[in-house]
């Protein structure tokens, strides 16, 4: 009975995924479609999107995966057609240096700015020595406490 249930369930699950013959392939398709952008609905991954193009591209990836192509080969195939934008994690190259290093540059600039500001303020806040009268008052207050 349990076996029957499992089999029915497996059959139903397969129905939703047309070419899902090989579970290893399916893992690769899943992994890649979470790394790649659906260009029709730009803030979704291929895995999340139900747009027809996303579906076509998932099938395309599935076919390539079935041909034992590596992740890199499949990504290169799509980048050649849709550009780096199809990747959710852009590669580090001259046109994306600002994107990758910009935040760190801003952080460094803010750090330098903070140091300069503190140094300058230190110069301005001069020590103000107590007068004899003030020193006497302080001693009196301290004595009262104890």
């Amino acid at each position: 009975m349990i076996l029957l249930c499992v089999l029915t369930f497996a059959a139903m699950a397969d129905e939703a995924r047309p070419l899902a013959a090989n579970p290893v392939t399916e893992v690769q398709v899943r992994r890649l479609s979470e790394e790649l952008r659906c260009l029709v609905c730009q803030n979704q991954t291929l895995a999340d999107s139900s747009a027809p193009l996303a579906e076509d591209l998932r099938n395309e990836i599935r076919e390539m995966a079935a041909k034992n192509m590596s992740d890199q080969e499949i990504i290169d195939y799509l980048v050649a057609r849709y550009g780096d934008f199809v990747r959710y994690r852009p590669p580090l190259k001259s046109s994306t240096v600002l994107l990758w290093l910009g935040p760190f540059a801003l952080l460094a600039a803010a750090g330098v700015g903070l140091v300069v500001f503190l140094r300058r303020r230190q110069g301005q806040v001069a020590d103000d020595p107590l007068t004899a009268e003030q020193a006497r008052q302080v001693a009196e207050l301290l004595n009262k406490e104890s």
Partner: protein
Amino acid sequence: MKRFLLPLGIFFVLVGFLAVGLRLDPREVPSPLIDKPAPQFSLPRLDNPQQMFSPKDMLGQVWLLNVWASWCSACREEHPVLLELTKSGVVPLYGIDYKDTREEAQQWLKDGGGDPYRATGMDISGRVGIDYGVYGVPETYLIDKAGIIRYKRIGPVTIEVLRDKMLPLIRELQAK
């Protein structure tokens, strides 16, 4: 007064960035296909499925390849512009009918006032579309005499785009 200058300056820089950023169209993704050979294909023609249409036949000519579909509402918008372009005879226009059916496509052309395409290939599966990096129909490619893609327009071709960008480039490529 002086201590307000810095925040004010930062504010204006921010406004500057936003003014530029908000004007950019995020749908216009630069195509990696520019200056690359147009991907080859051979598709059955819309008017006659026995006959095939292939970019190979176009070598030696500057031509436009327009990806369209009867389900695409922005295609309706550019259709009169394309009809006008073909009437002017400046550049041959060919089409790819993307993920569509023959009947609907033919009806759509009739409803739109005519067929501006010298030939249209039927890409029913969308495979050729993937090779061309199509993600938002209509898309238009300008291909030179050597079969190299020189320009790509994503979204409808408007009179302005045609006049300011495409036609000057077409003339330049034709003169070569």
